[in-house]
């Protein structure tokens, strides 16, 4: 079985800082504006040229960070990427994501949740790798595949499960559903059904952060926004427009591409003229990084740099995470188009298995400790289901409650009073 950390099939662009020379040779990225060294650790990634790409995606070798670390370890004292605590934290988060999504599938087939449900199995490393580095005030914007982003950001499993069941105790009172997870407390700005729709919203959140610092003079405001979206979105206008604006105004945002190669049934390679998404960053004046999205430690290293850059006010970064979804696009997708061999290849690189292996091999945790975590998560998920089951469904009076922040927006009725002042309003219809 291949070890997840050593499959070195990715090319990552390092950062030569040559402001004067611009080349179109695709093996080097020239970053137009000189800044501090970006991603010191990626120096370990060798420059590769990839003029061809084929369905098997990679033919280069790159030494993974953790490989280098392992080599070092045999010579001298180990310098691991994570501490034991961090390792367990990451493991727990990924297991939560996986267990939760598996439970969603079960509940869906049992008729407890409906509509379009998009599961995140296989992509946990991206969510955990990035979001666990954030503070509560940092913002996350996601897509319809947002359950695990919500969980990683801190939204309780109970609230997410209730939302999926359509109950009032859901994080959005049952009004949002699977594709619209929001949490003001945890600064999760959604959950969007149309692809690309959340990217401008994320740009706006980053704009607010800059505005607070520069106009409102809140000098310590260094909130960062992460925008998650997929490979299909990278062909959408909103993506490019926001890359431009974010780089133009140096907004504190990281654009995280979860490239799982498939947009429902459309292969990324069939839809995109140049499938190397990370290259599109430098075209707008920001670094573009490619990383193995099945390896949570690699993602975390890249994320640290990107988030750090944003916090220091150096501007946005585009990070392309090569990842894979083990399930279909949604629970309604029969998933017949993808090659079983491809699925098997990625299944062998399961991020949770990989991290487990890393933790055990580096004596950061024992089997028993990990098992305890898994058991705990099972209980959390079971509890979430129970809670959701027992929660009440929304009543009729809830229908019109959140249409307007200021319900005077429903207007003045024929009797001269505002409609919202009428106690029977909630039983009527909300026409003008």
């Amino acid at each position, binding site marked *: 079985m291949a070890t997840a950390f050593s499959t070195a099939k990715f090319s990552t662009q390092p950062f030569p800082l040559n402001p004067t020379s611009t080349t179109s040779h695709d093996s080097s990225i020239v970053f137009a504006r000189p800044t501090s060294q970006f991603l010191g650790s990626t120096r370990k990634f060798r420059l590769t040229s990839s003029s061809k790409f084929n369905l098997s995606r990679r033919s280069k070798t790159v030494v993974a960070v953790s490989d280098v670390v392992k080599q070092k370890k045999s010579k001298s004292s180990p310098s691991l990427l994570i501490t034991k605590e961090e390792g367990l934290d990451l493991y727990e988060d990924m297991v939560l994501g996986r267990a939760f999504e598996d439970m969603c599938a079960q509940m869906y087939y049992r008729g407890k949740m409906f509509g379009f449900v998009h599961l995140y199995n296989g992509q946990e490393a991206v969510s955990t790798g990035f979001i666990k580095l954030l503070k509560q005030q940092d913002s996350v914007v996601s897509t319809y595949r947002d359950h695990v982003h919500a969980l990683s950001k801190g939204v309780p499993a109970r609230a997410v499960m209730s939302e999926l069941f359509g109950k009032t105790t859901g994080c959005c009172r049952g009004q949002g559903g699977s594709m619209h997870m929001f949490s003001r407390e945890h600064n999760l700005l959604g959950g969007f059904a149309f692809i690309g729709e959340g990217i401008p919203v994320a740009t*706006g959140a980053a704009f607010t952060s800059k505005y607070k610092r520069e106009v409102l003079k809140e000098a310590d405001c260094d909130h960062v926004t992460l925008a998650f979206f997929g490979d299909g979105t990278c062909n959408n206008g909103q993506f490019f427009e926001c890359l431009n604006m974010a780089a133009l105004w140096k907004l504190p945002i990281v654009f995280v591409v979860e490239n799982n190669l498939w947009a429902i049934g459309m292969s990324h390679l069939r839809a995109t003229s140049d499938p190397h998404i990370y290259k599109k960053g430098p075209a707008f004046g920001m670094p573009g990084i490619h990383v193995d999205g099945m390896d949570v430690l690699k993602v975390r290293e890249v994320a640290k740099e990107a988030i750090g850059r944003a916090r220091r006010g150096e501007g946005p970064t585009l990070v392309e995470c090569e990842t894979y979804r083990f399930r279909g696009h949604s629970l309604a997708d029969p998933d017949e188009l993808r090659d079983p061999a491809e699925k098997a290849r990625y299944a062998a690189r399961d991020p949770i298995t990989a991290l487990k292996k890393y933790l055990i091999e580096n004596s950061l945790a024992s089997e028993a400790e990990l098992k305890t975590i898994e058991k705990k998560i099972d209980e959390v998920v079971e509890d979430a289901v129970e809670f959701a089951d027992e929660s009440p469904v929304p009543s009729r009076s809830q229908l019109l409650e959140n249409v307007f922040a200021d319900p005077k927006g429903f207007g003045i009725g024929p009797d001269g009073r505002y409609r919202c002042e009428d106690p029977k309003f909630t039983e009527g219809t909300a026409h003008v």
Partner: protein
Amino acid sequence: MATGFHGVGAAVAALSSSPSNSFDSKKLLCSPRRSFPVRKGASFVADRSDGSVNLDLNPKARRAQQLIVNAVANKADSSPASSSSKPGHELLLFEALREGLEEEMDRDPRVCVMGEDVGHYGGSYKVTRGLAEKFGDLRVLDTPIAENSFTGMGIGAAMTGLRPVVEGMNMGFLLLAFNQISNNCGMLHYTSGGQFTIPIVIRGPGGVGRQLGAEHSQRLESYFQSIPGIQMVACSTPYNAKGLMKAAIRSENPVILFEHVLLYNLKERIPDEDYICNLEEAEMVRPGEHVTILTYSRMRYHVMQAAKTLVNKGYDPEVIDIRSLKPFDLHTIGNSVKKTHRVLIVEECMRTGGIGASLTAAITENFHDYLDTPIMCLSSQDVPTPYAGTLEEWTVVQPAQIVTAVEQLCK
């Protein structure tokens, strides 16, 4: 907290000098006004711009008014004796918009502007002139040409604590932002279960201008009206332009403010003190007995011009500028219908699916019993606005048609 204002003896300057001059209307200078004591925090009696006083507000409506708006009176002017010669100041509609915007930006540092050419250029219709110099490039943000994305950016900023005012250089360009306006602006408060508010104002000039061609002559109010969660208002005088701008910025709801390309140079004298116009209320322009004419934006002036002719012919039309396109002020409208029993809607929207169509439905539903005759709706033709001047003139409703329609209604 009430809206109210010491009436403006509005002398609305004749607009434009183009040959097909349909804008002759000059509002009559009002007769000497009664004085109204200014009480702090109390409701004003609404003094309408043509000098007549609307005392029709029943206690409930007045209480409704009190709920919302606090017109902060200028203490220096509080003596009753002085109000009959209250100076105010004269300005053009686009300056009134700017004044409102600037006052709100002074008042609340979270208010910011974003749009194309709003900063250094001062706005394509000069509504934001001088603001970038005063408030800086970040508060008055010149955006690249990416309506969908910068509108979305405004929405994201609104969700995270700012109060942006997004300008569409021409309302028609906001078609490109329809995705964000419909999906995010209108919906996010609801789909987030009330967690996020979106106190955004989206504004810009629309309507049929002078031979601007089809794409620059669009009326987007009909396209946006179905979006749940937004409010739409249309300004038509410098007074209500400033008042609606301020009210829209202060509102917690997303508001779309429709301005009209041809109304920017209207001149009026407006009060010095702080005031806002209620977003949900209609404006009584001319009380009457025979027929209710409902209109908004530029068509108000065509209606008033027709009204002169009608008065000479012996008719007494009641003209209401509905101002709030969504939701409709069914109280003011209803009271009028109950009085006159005849309704004529004059709008610049297209016939199909326009504001007039919705208004017809709403009135029929609510006041059917009070109508003596079916509602008549005069709208623009269902054609892309032609470039040729003569054709363009026939696209929109002209005063002569309004006169004919009233004569027919009152037969």
